[in-house]
Every structure is written in structure tokens, then in C-alpha cells.
């Protein structure tokens, strides 16, 4: 059967999601996945001092996921005056010698808090594969489904018994072409459904989040305990992966109900709303800030798939980049003011970059060969740019980095062993980052 699976690997490259197959194999993995977790915190929370300490040490990550892939030329790696450059100028920043696009004046003023990588170089050039690669950190190997960054961090930084969800995906636009397919796929992979995301966003709140009018906590706890009891026989007899998946979903209900108000955009302050702007991406970045402040380990903010500028690249970036500029600026400053930046890693990136050349529709095509991303916060050196592309941005001429280097960097910055083995029964040996790929040490604090 192994041969058969291998032949499916190429099929996985087709844009249609085929993150498939055989969760049954992971049945035991649900328990086994705990092998690299930090252990249960349940005991700790019974002592207030410990709970306080745990909260102080809690690390967080906010991923500003720029679906569709923004242009490096109109953001972090401007090439003014070249054929690749486009109409926008470069501007100086508060770090001497570093220039970024003039569409990002606010970020230019806090460049000393940011780290920019200009030499990302990856392989897939289609969204579905790119989105998966940059969220999972490795090429697919069917039928095994590698968990996305959010799930890994939920497991590593979060606590299964915490009220606030460990992996929150804020995405006001439920649509989004290939991104829609990604969202519908199996994000938690071999870690199991309990590490999957809670999705919310925009005008669609979280339905059925309020407790029934005549329901007491006791009765609710009782019925859930009874449900788990009644499911056991079936789950054992059938080695049922579906039952495990349902159990995981039920286990998360209570926690989510207790923090319903954190997802309510009507409860955001007017002053904050004004700073982050009227766009849904800004509003949800603001929600992310509040969620992190309240203990959420990982929040991913996306907004459909707006960055895919095959048509009128410059015009579209002229609309989108200023919002990104404003959001990063306020998010970093707010986290710093609250003393959270030290403990919160912020990453802003898409699934690849955009081509140095323009197509016939004044758009830029997909371009994985040389692109940029930005980070700030926990474990990251400030005011540094690493990597260099050639004068027209066709390829990296210095220090190319791929998805594995990136994931090693993220894990290291958050104090997580990047090369730990997954100890999963009936599965090949996987590592958090494969091939011992080195982290981008130039940007690690």
C-alpha cells in the first residue's frame, strides 16, 4: 500500500484539496501526541500563585496571514527605478540604511522594532500548495497530515483545559478561493482535532455560544459527562476516529462559551477602532490584540484572499498596503505598551511573493523564488534586515531561506525545540522541522 500512497503525492499538488486519508491511523496518535507536550497544567491552576506565574510566562503568537501573496516590491523590498520596481518610491526608515516602500510610512517609523527577511525562497507557485507549505512548514507527505503552525503552537503554548481557545482563526471572509479549501481541510493533522482552530470573524459571530436559558452548569456538565460515557463502547469497538473527532469538538465547548465577549466586535473601544481603521483586517487584528492580552496563545488573522493581484497590482496594493502598514504599526506599539511584545511573536506574511515582471493585465504573477516577510516581538532581534535580492528582485543573492528555516526561527523564538520528534504510533518519524534546517539566526535575539 505504501507505493500507492507515494503515487498520491503528486496528486496532492493539484489545487483541489486532497489533504486526505485515513485518520484512523492517528487514532492512537491522539494520545501519543502528548508525548512532546509540556504536560498538563490542570494541577498548576489549583494554586493561584502558580496560575499567575503561568500567565506571566505565557507566550503568544499573532500571524497576520496575507492570503493571496502580497508583493515584496510594494512592501519590504522596493526596487525603485528598475523595471521591476513599479511606480512607488522607497523611503528611509528609522534604521539607517534601511528603506522600505513609501506605501508603509508608519512601519518605516518603527523599523527599529521590526525584523525583515528579504530572501525567502520557496518552491510552490500555486496558492493551495503555497498556503499549505507556509502554514505547515514542510512539503506534504500523504497520507500523513502535518499540523499547521497554529495547531503546533496551540499544543506547545496552550493548555487543553484553558477557557480561551488555543488556536483562533479570525477571518471575516469565509470565502477565498484556494484559501477556502485550506480552511475546510484538516488543519490540526496528526495532532488531532482538539488542536484545530476556533473560527470566527466579521458579522458572523460564533453561533450557539450562549447557554440555554433554563440550563444549569451542573446539568450541562452532567450531560457532557454522560455523553462521554455513552460514547466509550462505540469508540472502542469501532476504533472510531469519527468518535474521537466528535469528542474533541465537544471538549472545547465550555471554554469557548466562557470567553464569548472577547469575540464581540461591538465591545471594542471607539478609540481603538479609530486607530486600527474601519477595515475588517484592522478590526480583527485589534481583536487579536485583545485575545492575546487575555491569554490566547495563537491568533491567526486573515481576510479572504485579497492579495492575489494578477490584475492591476499597483492599484490594489495602493489600497491594501496602507491598511497593513497601519495595523502592524498599532499592533506592535500596543503590544509593547502592554508589556506583551517581549512575549508575543508577530509574523506578517503570505504564501509567496509576486513576480518582478508585470503581466498583460498590469498584474504581478505568483513568485516563490524571492520574497519578503516581517516579524517582531518574542525572541526576535529588532531593527534588522536579513537577505538580499538582486537589483531587479529575480532571485536572492544572499542567504536564501525556505519554509523550514522560517519554522525553525519561529519555534526557536518562542522557546520551542524546533527539531523535536513526533512520537506517533504506526507512523514514520516526523520532526517539528525536518532536515535539521537551521533557524534564521540573523534575526533571532
Amino acid at each position, binding site marked *: 500500500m505504501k507505493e500507492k500512497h507515494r503515487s498520491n503525492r503528486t496528486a496532492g499538488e493539484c489545487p483541489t484539496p486532497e489533504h486526505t486519508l485515513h485518520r484512523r491511523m492517528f487514532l492512537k496518535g491522539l494520545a501519543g501526541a502528548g508525548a512532546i507536550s509540556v504536560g498538563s497544567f490542570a494541577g498548576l491552576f489549583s494554586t493561584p500563585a502558580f496560575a499567575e506565574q503561568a500567565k506571566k510566562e505565557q507566550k503568544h503568537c499573532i500571524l497576520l496571514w496575507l492570503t493571496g501573496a502580497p508583493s515584496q516590491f510594494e512592501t519590504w523590498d522596493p526596487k525603485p527605478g528598475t523595471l521591476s520596481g513599479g511606480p512607488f518610491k522607497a523611503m528611509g526608515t528609522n534604521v539607517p540604511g534601511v528603506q522600505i516602500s513609501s506605501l508603509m510610512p508608519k512601519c518605516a517609523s518603527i523599523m527599529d522594532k521590526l525584523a525583515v527577511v528579504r530572501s525567502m525562497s520557496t518552491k510552490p507557485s500555486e496558492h493551495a500548495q503555497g498556503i499549505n507549505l507556509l502554514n505547515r512548514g514542510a512539503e506534504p507527505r500523504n497520507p500523513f497530515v502535518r499540523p499547521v503552525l497554529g495547531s503546533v503552537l496551540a499544543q506547545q503554548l496552550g493548555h487543553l483545559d484553558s477557557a480561551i481557545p488555543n488556536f483562533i482563526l479570525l477571518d471575516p*471572509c469565509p470565502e*477565498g478561493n484556494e484559501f477556502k479549501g485550506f480552511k475546510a481541510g484538516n488543519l490540526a493533522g496528526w495532532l488531532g482535532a482538539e488542536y484545530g482552530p476556533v473560527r470566527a470573524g466579521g458579522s458572523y459571530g460564533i453561533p450557539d455560544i450562549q447557554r440555554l436559558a433554563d440550563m444549569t452548569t451542573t446539568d450541562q456538565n452532567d450531560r457532557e459527562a454522560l455523553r462521554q460515557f455513552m460514547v466509550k463502547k462505540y469508540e472502542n469497538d469501532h476504533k472510531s476516529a469519527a468518535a474521537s473527532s466528535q469528542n474533541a469538538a465537544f471538549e472545547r465547548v465550555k471554554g469557548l462559551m466562557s470567553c464569548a465577549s472577547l469575540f464581540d466586535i461591538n465591545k471594542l473601544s471607539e478609540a481603538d477602532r479609530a486607530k486600527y481603521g474601519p477595515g475588517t483586517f484592522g478590526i480583527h487584528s485589534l481583536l487579536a490584540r485583545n485575545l492575546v492580552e487575555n491569554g490566547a496563545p495563537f491568533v491567526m488573522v486573515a481576510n479572504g484572499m485579497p492579495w492575489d493581484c494578477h490584475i492591476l497590482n499597483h492599484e490594489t496594493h495602493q489600497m491594501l498596503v496602507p491598511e497593513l502598514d497601519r495595523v502592524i504599526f498599532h499592533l506592535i506599539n500596543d503590544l509593547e505598551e502592554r508589556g506583551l511584545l517581549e512575549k508575543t511573536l508577530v509574523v506578517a506574511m503570505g504564501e509567496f511573493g509576486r513576480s*518582478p515582471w508585470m503581466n498583460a493585465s498590469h498584474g504581478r504573477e505568483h513568485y516563490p523564488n524571492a520574497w519578503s516577510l516581517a516579524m517582531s516581538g518574542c525572541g526576535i532581534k529588532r531593527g534588522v534586515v536579513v537577505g538580499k535580492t538582486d537589483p531587479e528582485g529575480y532571485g536572492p543573492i544572499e542567504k536564501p531561506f525556505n519554509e523550514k528555516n522560517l519554522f525553525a526561527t519561529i519555534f526557536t523564538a518562542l522557546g520551542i525545540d524546533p527539531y523535536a520528534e513526533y512520537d506517533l504510533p504506526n507512523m514514520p518519524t516526523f520532526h517539528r522541522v525536518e532536515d535539521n534546517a537551521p533557524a534564521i539566526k540573523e534575526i533571532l535575539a
Partner: protein
Amino acid sequence: MRPAYVISATCTSLFRNATLAQRVGASLFATVFFGVASNAVAASLPPSTTQPSANSAQPMWVNHIEPILSKSCFKCHGGEKQKGGLDLRKLDSIFAGGTDGSVVIPGRPGESMLYQRLQPGATDHMPPAKEPQLGAEDISLVQQWIATLATSTDRVASAAASTFDQSAPSLMEMASRVKWEPPAGMAASDAVDSLIQSHWKEQNVSGNGICDDRTFVRRIYLDLAGRIPTLEEAESFVSSTQPQKRSELVDRLLAGAEYPVHMAEVLDVVLMERKGKGAEFSRKSNGWIKYLRTSIADGRSWNDMVGDMILARPKSAEQRGAVNFLYERRNNFQAMAEAVAPMAFGVSVACAQCHNHPMAHEIKQQHYWGLVSAFNRTANVDADDGIAVTESATGGFVYFTNLKKESQPAILAFPNDKTIAEDRPTDGAKEKDSPTKYVVPPSMDNGQALVAAVPKFSRRQAIADAVTHDNPLLARAFVNRMWSMLLGRGFVNPVDQMDSKHPPSHPELLAWLSNDFEKSGYDIRHLIRTIVLSKTYQLDSQWKGSTPPLPELFAQGLEKPLSAEVLYRSLLVATGRDFKNEKGNPDTESLRQALIVAFPGLFDVEYNATLQQSMFFTNSPLFEAMLKPSGENLNARLLKLPTNQEKVKMAFIEILGREPDNSELAGAVAYLDARNDRAEAGVRQMTWALLTSAEFLLNH
């Protein structure tokens, strides 16, 4: 001539991201593209703003690389000699590499032998020292060119240029490769088992035995009646001593009134997708649901039904609803093409809109635009007597553009190797529409069509014929779909990707079942009967060993999630509602709608329970209402029982169709005993727990 067709078709292909198109603004969009709306739209688009060499790999190849290689390399790697098995004259032979393997790795000049060997001082440096050497500029151009090959555009453009692409076997060739017939005299269902079980042997797996009667009666009711059996139905089946009782029950359910309702729901989601309440309403009022139900109930053959939907010219009042298949797609020809392909050929073609399918080479861009052309003379008509779709006798000659910016005419070519000949006006010639070109000529009032015109040459008729006659792919697609519905997984999975990249798990069985389905006159009941009477369908779903076998071995009954509608009706049955007369009850109708929102999936590739579903069960007042004791419903009856032991036993048998085991009984009784202070709350929590258990929520 209807230039609007050309615009809509081509522009959509340029706008890969429709939301972006809207964002940029329809008016700007129109000024950019409207002015060049001719037959060869894309070919005459304004040229790129950057230099041609940077535009894509293609001009670079033509302008720089081919000349460099021609001058310095062809002597030994092209023409007379192909040293090292390497031919550098053409893109496809370059990508094929030499005896030492690949020479070009797109996007990775540093790792590409073609570039490495050119470097000064390289091992086995090329060209050899005695030959004229390349200049630094030429070497850098080769580097640049290989780097640009990393982008999709160029890679796909290169793939399109490769001969491999052209020689890929077609879907029809692949479908006809495998043939199998059971030994004479073997019953159809036994033939299924013989192939499944011989595969077990090959894989060294011993499969399960068949399930007990209680499991079977629940499974078959869920699959054919779309609900769990009532207690009486289950008991009468289990207690029957008839040796043929399983096949008798199957026949009774297939002849019953619930089977067409259930199948219509399945086909509706498969063919139309779930599109919300509005669509559900219009599908009812347009007669679509009734069409599906009546056709299933009357046992119409599947190929006739497919013909009804594609042709959309109803011959009787019962067929009128079939028009909705095209009508609901509101003159969106690409949506029509994308909906027809899985039904008619078992494949999704959306990938082939902008280029030949990148992985499954047999699905070509010309098939996509061929399917679009089959429908692009179609337009919705709101006739006096209901919905209709007209067809023009002229226009709809689309050109499509590949990623190399080459434009070609779309002809009526379909993925099943069929091409329909059609006269094509020369470019720029004005085509005259005239009543003589019609069987039923168009009748217009203020630009509004009043009747559905029927041209003498009808493209829809052409594709309907091409799909419903001599098209083995039609039967294969439906057989795979039904197998997936009944067994929990298709021979090909995902079900609508029956292409070269997704070979079937059981090619002989798929071939034979499809052939048998076709020979039966596309008789859906015959197909279902063959499958469900097999031992394979009736296998026990429990697995005694440690690791369950791979699902594609079909060595145990696979778990199947209940669809929203099946779950809805099963909830009504389990909670003791009058499930046959719930129509029009606003409370239960709201529950049904809410279930559709929480459980939209059908034929999902992979099962994932969602938090939304558990939130629904936990906090939805609609679900909670089912638990309220009232009249003779389940909880009311449970509360009348004298002992907690009796309550537990009855709840188990009514909801799960089985007795509790000792530990389940003890546990549940202990809970009810502790809750004797509030007996109703106790019973409610218990039935809630049973209704939300995996055993209830799955068909197994």
C-alpha cells in the same frame, strides 16, 4: 453574434479572483477590457509594460536562450549528435534531461546542470575547452531564464509545450483498459464480493464477517429510507425468521415512498450544491425537487435524467423541473460546464480553465472551453408557463488563451474524446441570425425572450447526445458516486476526480459494475440493489484487531456521517415525533434548516467534527426543544416508566436500536438515581447524551 459571450468568458478567466474583480470595480474593469472585445480578445490585449525578456520564459527562450544554445551547444546536443542523451533543441527535451538526469531545475539555476557546467572552473565544464566559450552575459542570461522558470506561468507553459502532455492517454482510453466479467452464473452481488475479497488476499488482510440484523436494519434504513427505523420496524425485522429477509427489506425500501425523497436530497446536493434557503425555495417552486423525486420513484434511467438536465427541453410536465439544472446557473456557462463535467465524465475541470490540467494531463483546456461552448448559446427565459432556457442558433464562438498567451478557438470537444463538427464563421464575418435556422424560432418582446427557442443545430442537443450515448464515463461516474454513498468511500476518492492521478482502488470492480449499470439501462435501483445485497456492504463495522485496515480495502463497514436531512428525520424518529407528518411544523422546520447549516457536508473527503456542531447540540434551543417531554414523545414516555432501569433500557433501544450493556446500564442508572430529585432533568440529560453520541450520529 453575441459579443457579450466572449467578454464574459474571457474576462472571467483573467480574473482568477472574482472578489478582486469586484474590488477593482466593474467600471474600470470594463474600460480595460471592453475596448478589445473581439474574437481574439486575449491575443490583442495591450502588451506588457516591461521588457519582453522579463515578461515570461517564452520570449526569453525565443530571443536569447535558444540562440545561445544553438550557437554553442547544438553541435553536440542536438541535430546529428545528442551526447549524454541530451537534446537541447526543444524545451520538452531539455526538461526530459540526459542520461545523467535533469539538467534544468526550474527556479534553481544553482542546482541545474545546464548552468553549473557553464561556470568557469566547473567539473566537466561546458562547452569543452577546445570549443568557443560563452560570454559572461550569456551565462547570466541562462541563469536568469532558469530562475524565471520557477513561476507557475512558465512551468505550465513549458509543460504545455512538452510532448508528454500531448501523448497522455485520454479518460476514455484509461476507462477501457480494464475489463472484467464474473464467471457464468455468479450472482451480481457475489461478483462484487469476489473482487473485494481477492484484493484482501493480495493485501494479506482478513476482512470482517457480515453484521448482525440490528446493525443491518439501521444501516439499510439510513441508506435507503434516509432515517433510522422505528422500534416496530426494527423489531419486526430482527424477529423475522425469513431466510431472504434482508433482500426483501431492500426491495421494500427501494419500492417505498421515502427512498425517492432521500435520493432526491442526495442528488440535489451533488448536482446543485447547498446554496442556502433562497435556493432551496426556488428549487421547490421551479419543480426541481419534484422532478428528482418523480424520476427516482418512476425508475427513470440515469442517462435519460442526465439528458433532461443538459438539454432542458422538457417533453412532459414532470420533466419541467429538470430545466432548473441550467436555469439556476443564470447564464453562467462556466458554472454549467463545471457542473456537467463531474456528472458526465467523473472529473472536475475547473483546473483546466487557464491551462491544461497541471497534473492530470488528459484534462485539457480545450475540454473546459468545449464544455463552455456547449452552453454559451443558452439564456434563461421566464416564460408564461414557468422557467425555461432558450438557445440561439448563432454566436458563441469563443477563443481561449493559454498561459503562453496563445489564443485558440474553442470547439465542441469534450473529455470523452468526442468532438462535434460545426461550421465556424471566418473571423470578423458577421453571422446572420434568421428564423430559418430554428425549429422553434425566438420570439422577442422588448429584448425579452418569450419562448425557449430551439435551433436546428443545437449545441445542447449535441452535448446531451455525446454524454448520454456511448459514454462509459457517465456510468463510471455514477457507480463511483453510489459506491461512495453506500460504502463510505468511492473506488476513486475524492469522488469527482476520476482522472489519471487518482486511480481506482478496484479497477475491475468499477469497470464491471459500470458496464452492468449501463447494460441494465442505467437502472439506479438495480445498481443499489447489487451493492447493498453484497456481503461487502453488509460487513460488520467493528474492528477487533489493533489497527483498522486501510479504508480502501473495504474490509470492514466504514463509518458514514449522517447528512443533515437524514439526521433530522432520525432525530424525529428517535424522539418519538410523528415523523411522517412533520411537514409544515415551523419548529421542526427551523431545526431542519439549522441542521443543514451545522452539517452541510456530503461526500466529504475526510470526516472532521466541528466545534460548530458541538455548540449547536449544546446550546441550540431548537435541538433542546426535541427533548421536552410532551404528549407521547420519547421523554414523556420515559418519565412514565416506574424504574430508572426501564428508562435506560428504553432510551437505548429507541435511540440506538440496541440494549445497553451492563456497565452502560449501571452508569446511566446511577446517574438517574442521583438525579431522582429532578427526574425530568435526569431523563433529558440522558437522552441528550445518547442523541449526541457517535453511535447515533453515524451510520455504521
